[in-house]
């Protein structure tokens, strides 16, 4: 593993698409071994931020350091060390689970045994099933398996559980917790506050391309107790969801 304090360091990141400013001076500071959550409404700039960190998009300005390296200087080295799950990738439906993972495994110099990864994501029974026949949850676990097969030091998960049923979500959570238990780092975006509360060591709430709040889930929940008039019925059991709504002025699934 790379010996650096920070898994990810982002300073003053800016990115605009024409007139639309997607990321507007965003700062992030994520430690090695941390599971860090980015939450925010749609269009807040989460996906743009994560794709710049993944080396898939060019930034307009600002500094991005991933595992102590930069994309400009160490692009190829970095790709070997990152595991990535994108929001909207559709894996080839004609291939089987095993074939898909062997393909992804072949891209990396070092990586994990394909069979082990398939077992780890509980797709052993689906080993020879075509991707087209998998359920949404199984497809998502396969996408994460593709991210794990290169044995990454840092995992990027962009809304990994969106659209999944509660059971599939719990399975993915335990998968993510298992990865975290090995001391590696995860950057996660999500719409679900319970997910962020359960998985993340620290959470950054992003809106309009900036971080508007940062802290552990507990700190964030505590902080709003003082700043907003508590919602009368359940003031004592404020959740991260209340923080989110209070800060962004929007409800969760606001499109």
């Amino acid at each position, binding site marked *: 593993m790379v010996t650096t304090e920070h898994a990810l360091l982002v300073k003053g990141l800016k990115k605009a698409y024409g007139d639309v400013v997607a990321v507007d001076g965003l700062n992030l500071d994520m430690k090695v071994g941390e599971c860090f959550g980015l939450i925010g409404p749609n269009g807040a700039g989460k996906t743009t931020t994560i794709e710049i960190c993944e080396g898939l998009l060019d930034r307009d300005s600002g500094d991005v350091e991933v595992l102590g390296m930069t994309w400009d200087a160490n692009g190829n080295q970095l*790709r070997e060390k990152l595991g990535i799950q994108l929001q909207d990738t559709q*894996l080839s439906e004609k*291939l089987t689970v095993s074939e898909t993972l062997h*393909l992804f495994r072949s891209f990396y110099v*070092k990586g994990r045994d394909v069979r082990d990864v398939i077992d780890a994501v509980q797709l052993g029974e689906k080993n020879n099933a075509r991707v087209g026949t998998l359920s949404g949850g199984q497809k998502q676990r396969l996408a994460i398996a593709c991210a794990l097969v*290169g044995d990454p030091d840092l995992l990027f998960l962009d809304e990994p559980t969106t659209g999944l049923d509660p059971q599939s979500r719990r399975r993915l959570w335990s998968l993510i917790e298992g990865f975290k238990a090995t001391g590696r780092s995860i950057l996660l975006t999500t719409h679900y506050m319970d997910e962020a509360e359960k998985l993340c060591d620290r959470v950054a709430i992003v809106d309009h391309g900036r971080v508007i709040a940062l802290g552990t889930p507990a700190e964030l929940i505590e902080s709003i107790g003082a700043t907003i008039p508590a919602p009368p019925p359940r003031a004592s059991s404020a959740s991260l969801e209340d923080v989110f709504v209070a800060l962004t002025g929007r409800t969760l699934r606001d499109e």
Partner: protein
Amino acid sequence: MSDMETRTPSRRFVDRSIVQLTLVRFREFIRQPEAVFWTFVFPILLAVGLGLAFRSRAPERPLIGVVSSDATAAGIFASLQKDSTLTAESFTSDTAAQHALRTAKVAILAVSDGRGGVRYIYDPQRSESAIARLVADRAIQTGAGRADPVAVSEMKVTERGSRYIDFVIPGLLGMNLMGSGIWGLGFAIVDSRSKRLLKRFMATPMSRAEYLMSFLFSRMFFLILEVVTLLGFGVLAFKVPMRGSILDLALICILSALTFGGVGLLVASRAKTVEGVSGLMNFVMLPMWILSGVFFSSNNFPSIVQPLIRILPLTAVNDALRANMLEGASLGGVAPQLIVIAAWLVISFAAALKLFRWR
């Protein structure tokens, strides 16, 4: 998740990414029955259909009607029956005979004029009737005792290589090389792009060169199958001649497949949706289907557009294939065509790699 040990990078052949990527091409192709049909079965169906529709037949024998009215008519009918190049049919009434003529069941009527002579009733505008007039007259005059003053002998020649099927098989091969090259690359790449799979690959250390090479490798493999199936069928079923060197033919096919692969890559370089690239591919291929001499000679088009037609890649491919197969031309003999094909190869690849959008 406890066993996170990494494997040493001692890689078996099948674990190499170029091998895995090429395997993906094979798997995706053979698991798509419609692609297999259009690549292998359709050209053969087309060849069978065209071969049957335009097969060489003996010219039809003219049908000559006779009305059995008197002894002269009986003599006419007897003379006609002796001639093997025509068919005579006897009618018992004038009305029936006239009806047969009007409805083109017979080409001509040869009737007795009542004074020992013959009268032909026919429409001179109909070419089959005009021919029937000559054939019937010859048969009747010979039957009545006319002797030809000049002795005649015949040598019949039917040349393989000049039939329509001989023309169309190389054309179908060229069309197939174009179709599988452009579709094979264009569709697969844009499909991956539209599903964000290309972008996902870009997030791995995958080599871009290997990704593109995998398409060329699989194209080369399927090329062998395509060419052998279609030509094997042409040779076995229709005895299409293969007069040139097989090695030269293989080289022409490989060069052509690479060129159309390059055109496919160019077409796929920017398109974001499968619908978009389908339109583009048809826009590229349709003019060549018509202009480049697949089903009929491109010489049919006016001479002013000939220079344009000559520089189309499919025209050059078809001309080279025909020169090799039908005329036995050497590679030197098809040098101008090879130059055109190679130029397209260089231009399309250079442009495609410049324009290609990897996400």
